[in-house]
């Protein structure tokens, strides 16, 4: 995390020096708001990856949850129904993922990859090419409103971060997920209920994707079947840049937050400096590789010291 904070600081200083629009309160809040949308979907994913799993279905989950939430609000007129539908949908998908991984013993990559395709199919069938749009201002405030001049998604991000950090660092459950990620067999032998812990971590991931879907819906004021398609790769990038290892057992949410902020800064900086944003994926890829190299370097050093 130390190196990453230095990285963010350097990126920030470079942008501040090259564009006067960067270091303004309104732009920094704008960066945080954009980062919060990535962070929400990446936070549950972080937990799954810490437990040595993977959830490839989050983008499709966000899409289906957003569409169901949209339909629920449109048909009942009640915002609570939208919330309920989005969260319930996300959570149900998470539980299914968890069951496939633990009960059917499918590798997480395959289970959630299959889930991704099924969710696309269900969503295309459900939406039939339509767009659901036009929601009441109270609902849209969740995505684009401010409270005490700070965007509301930023509060959601901070709340998710705090809950997640407390959960992973100060509860037995959190420690158990790390233990499972580090060595599932050893964790089982020491009496940790591996199956139920994994199901719970996939459920959290699904529920966070459902929440992200509702926030996306509020931010975009519209839902179409493809709404979540572009979210999966940035979410994985945020987790990896944040230093959570795909082998499990290490990393955490603070890193993912930094990863989400770095990703957002890249796009923000390119826009402010009017650099062609076609270069954005290339830069993102370089940052992912850089972060991974730094990790493997420091890990090797600590190992040789021990």
């Amino acid at each position: 995390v130390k190196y990453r904070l230095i990285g963010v600081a350097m990126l920030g200083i470079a942008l501040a020096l090259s564009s006067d629009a960067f270091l303004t309160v309104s732009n920094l809040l704008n960066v945080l708001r954009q980062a919060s949308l990535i962070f929400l979907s990446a936070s549950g994913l972080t937990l799954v990856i810490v437990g040595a799993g993977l959830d490839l279905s989050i983008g499709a989950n966000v899409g289906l949850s957003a569409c169901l939430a949209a339909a629920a609000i449109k048909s009942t007129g009640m915002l609570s129904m939208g919330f309920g539908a989005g969260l319930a949908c996300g959570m149900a998908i998470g539980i299914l993922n968890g069951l496939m991984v633990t009960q059917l013993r499918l590798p997480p990559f395959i289970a959630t990859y299959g889930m991704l395709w099924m969710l696309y199919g269900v969503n295309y069938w459900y939406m039939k090419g339509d767009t659901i749009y036009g929601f009441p201002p109270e609902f849209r405030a969740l995505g684009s409103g401010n409270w005490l001049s700070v965007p509301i998604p930023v509060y959601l991000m901070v709340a998710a971060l705090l809950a997640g950090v407390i959960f992973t660092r100060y509860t037995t459950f959190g420690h158990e997920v790390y233990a499972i990620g580090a060595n599932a067999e050893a964790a089982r032998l020491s009496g940790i209920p591996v199956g139920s812990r994994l199901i719970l971590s996939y459920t959290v991931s699904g529920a966070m994707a459902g929440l992200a879907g509702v926030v996306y819906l509020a931010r975009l004021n519209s839902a179409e079947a493809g709404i979540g398609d572009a979210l999966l790769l940035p979410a994985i990038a945020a987790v990896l840049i944040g230093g959570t290892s795909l082998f499990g057992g290490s990393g955490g949410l603070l890193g993912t937050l930094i990863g989400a902020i770095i990703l957002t800064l890249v796009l923000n900086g390119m826009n402010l400096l009017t650099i062609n944003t076609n270069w954005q994926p290339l830069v993102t890829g370089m940052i992912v590789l850089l972060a991974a190299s730094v990790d493997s370097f420091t890990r090797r050093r600590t190992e040789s010291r021990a």
Partner: protein
Amino acid sequence: LRKQRRTVAIVLGVCLSLAACGQPKESGSADQPKRETIALFTKNQTNPYFKTIRLAAQAAAKALNVEVVDFVPTKADSIPEQMSQIEDAITKRPDAAVFIPVDSVALVPGVEKFNAAKIPVVNLVDRAEGGEFVSFMGCDDYTVSLETARYLFKKMNGKGNVIIIEGMSGSSNNTKRVGGFKKALEEFPNIKLLASQTGKFQRIDALQVTDNLLQAHRQIDGILAANDAMALGAIEALDGANRKALVIGINGTKEAIDAVKAGKLLATGDCDGFVQGCMGVMGAVRHLRNQPVPKEIIFPITVFDSTNYQGADVPYESRNCPPWEKIVKE
């Protein structure tokens, strides 16, 4: 396990025999004139524009007493999937095909398969770069965006700052649309282009890019988006930042028309997707019935604004196709 396998075999057998019984008996229907079948290929399930075209095709089918069968890739704009759908369609021997290629170059071999099978093809919306066609019918993207941009610049009294939100770089309709925008910029020397960035034809990308550009530039008077979804994303960004600018989009989707009605979107330029869907099917049927079809039809352009959106504000399900002669004037 063996028992399971036997069950599977029985189930399969029952399914097959049912399917065989379900086949229509060919001999009985010989005296009845056979309804022509038209295979319609659209690009994806997600873009409402293609849904409009599919609905229009069904309206035309009803009017002409033919059957239209849809082929839509499940993965949006998938080249291999559309290619295999062409092969599937050919085995069912439709009388004609109305074809929107997901890629104008990569699908040329698909068109050649139709040609080899002697199934006549009408090429709709995006021009395929090769193969034999009865007719090409489409909209000139360059002219649509040129006209829509001119409309915006006139509303701005010929001066002010604008940004362009481009679509997916490299796609041919994006190149034409951005080209049209830039041509209009040349005609209005006091309009200043602050930035031209890609929103990848997606609402969320356009929203974030607009968010960022609003931070970089104190004064933005106009936003030109290469499709409606991006224009609506830009409007959400403006609302969130409490800023005002005149926004235009391209496509004339229902959502955009509603935004025009609500006074949020200045205008959206379009060749009516409904008319295109109708004409594609009508052209194919005319060819089958030995009536003349021009080699090329370029549809007229409409810029929908607060004065004329009513024309587009009719639900597609209750619309009828225009008569052929209204569009094709010899």
